[in-house]
């Protein structure tokens, strides 16, 4: 016997969480884009998507974030920090890959300096993940040692019932347990069978990839040039990635006041590594693509013991020229056959 969240009680569930002080965010399709947004009713949710186009990363590490407000006086500058207020949020209907993405990034944001902006949001968020029963040609979680029902980064795991009437509920953390409190009366006991999870084929051999990347000779391999020849150098793969976390600091303002902001940046952009002198250590797209792959499957692991990829496949799914991590890692796998 396990606990079941009946689908027809979803609205009660939202209401219960809201009255417990939570904002509820769920996949929504609005203005021709699927993303996580605050919802008040279950009918606004788009739970049947394989994956939202935007990741939940956006809600922890926004594309642009004010850090400091400043005003320029005659002899000095007044500054005022802009740290987000505490706000309790439930992310409902997160996919395992996106949830894992948060867990992958946690050590980065807490490593030498604890990023308030990230952790204030992380600490007040409860991730309710729904295991995947569908997948598409781009999903690759199984290739990066995750799966359509992996629990990494999740506080509550929901497994769809075979009959479609609801989800089997499993709390994975204290935070998850606490979240079930307000809805305890909604949950019921049951032993309905869960639907089988999606089958996502293994698309590359990540161990071989890691070994090849770790080989110093690979850095200067001609491979990078060939594999990245059609890359146009946009940042969409990085910006839609649940784990990419690079940012830039920009001041924006007028003569009198302004705001220092933290903005997403991308290793795909030539400007990313441009020195003031005009010298650019990564002055070709192939060196930039190499950096992206190396960072995800070599350097990041070296520092934090985990690859910076949760297998969502968004990089390929939306690439304007049909590139992506999968193709590159497949090619590396084939190199080392």
């Amino acid at each position: 016997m396990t606990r079941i969240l009946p689908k027809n009680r979803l609205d009660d569930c939202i209401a219960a969480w809201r009255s417990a002080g939570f904002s509820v965010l769920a996949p929504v399709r609005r203005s021709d884009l699927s993303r996580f947004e605050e919802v008040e009713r279950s009918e606004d949710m788009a739970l049947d998507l394989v994956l939202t186009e935007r990741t939940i990363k956006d809600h922890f590490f926004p594309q642009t974030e004010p850090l400091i407000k400043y005003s320029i006086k005659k002899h000095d500058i007044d500054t005022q920090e802009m740290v987000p207020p505490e706000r309790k949020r439930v992310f409902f209907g997160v996919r395992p890959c996106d949830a894992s993405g948060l867990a992958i990034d946690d050590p980065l944001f807490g490593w030498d300096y604890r990023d308030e902006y990230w952790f204030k949001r992380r600490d007040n968020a409860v991730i309710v993940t729904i295991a995947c029963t569908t997948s598409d040609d781009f999903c690759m979680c199984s290739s990066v040692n995750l799966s359509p029902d992996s629990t990494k980064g999740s506080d509550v795991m929901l497994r769809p019932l075979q009959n479609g009437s609801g989800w089997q509920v499993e709390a994975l953390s204290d935070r998850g347990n606490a979240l079930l409190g307000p809805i305890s009366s909604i949950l019921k006991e049951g032993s309905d069978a869960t639907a089988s999870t999606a089958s996502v084929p293994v698309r590359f051999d990540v161990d071989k990839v890691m070994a090849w990347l770790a080989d110093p000779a690979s850095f200067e391999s001609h491979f990078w040039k060939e594999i990245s020849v059609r890359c146009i150098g946009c940042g969409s793969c990085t910006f839609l990635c649940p784990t990419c976390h690079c940012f830039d600091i920009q001041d924006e303002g007028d003569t009198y006041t302004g705001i220092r902001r933290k903005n997403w940046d991308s290793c795909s952009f030539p400007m990313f590594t441009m020195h003031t002198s005009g010298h650019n250590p990564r002055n070709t797209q192939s060196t930039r693509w190499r950096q992206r792959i190396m960072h995800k499957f070599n350097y990041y692991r070296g520092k934090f013991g985990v690859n910076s990829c949760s297998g969502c496949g968004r990089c390929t799914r939306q690439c304007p020229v049909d590139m992506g991590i999968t193709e590159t890692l497949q090619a590396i796998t084939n190199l080392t056959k």
Partner: protein
Amino acid sequence: MSEPFEPKIVAFVCTYCTYAGADLAGTSRMKYASNVRIVRLPCTGRISPMFILKALQKGADAVLVSGCHPGDCHFAQGNYHARRRWTVFRALLSFTGIPEQRIRFSWISAAEGAKFTELINNLTEDIRKLGPFEQYHELQTVIETQATY
């Protein structure tokens, strides 16, 4: 009753015609609304569309762009180039929902102090009626406020 709304108007003008026309309005002691701030440029050819966007960001409720009549340009052709640019830019702004009433273009010669006076007064009155350009200014106020997540 709150104070009547006083619009902020930024004018980008060429120094040879419209700026001189505005000077003439002054030397003739004509009177017009104090809402306009003039940015002097050598020629309408120098007026880049970015100026208009920045003026809006800085809270302008309307922007005026003005120069020499066709054929009178001190630089022979600058205003003809400007006219093409405006035609296209105006269509673009209009299509993105920036009302045509708020972006005005005119030819005012160095002799047309009266036209300048009348234009500023009419424009100010029009924009008073139209109200502040809140839609655009909100874009700025939003970024100045604390992230709501």
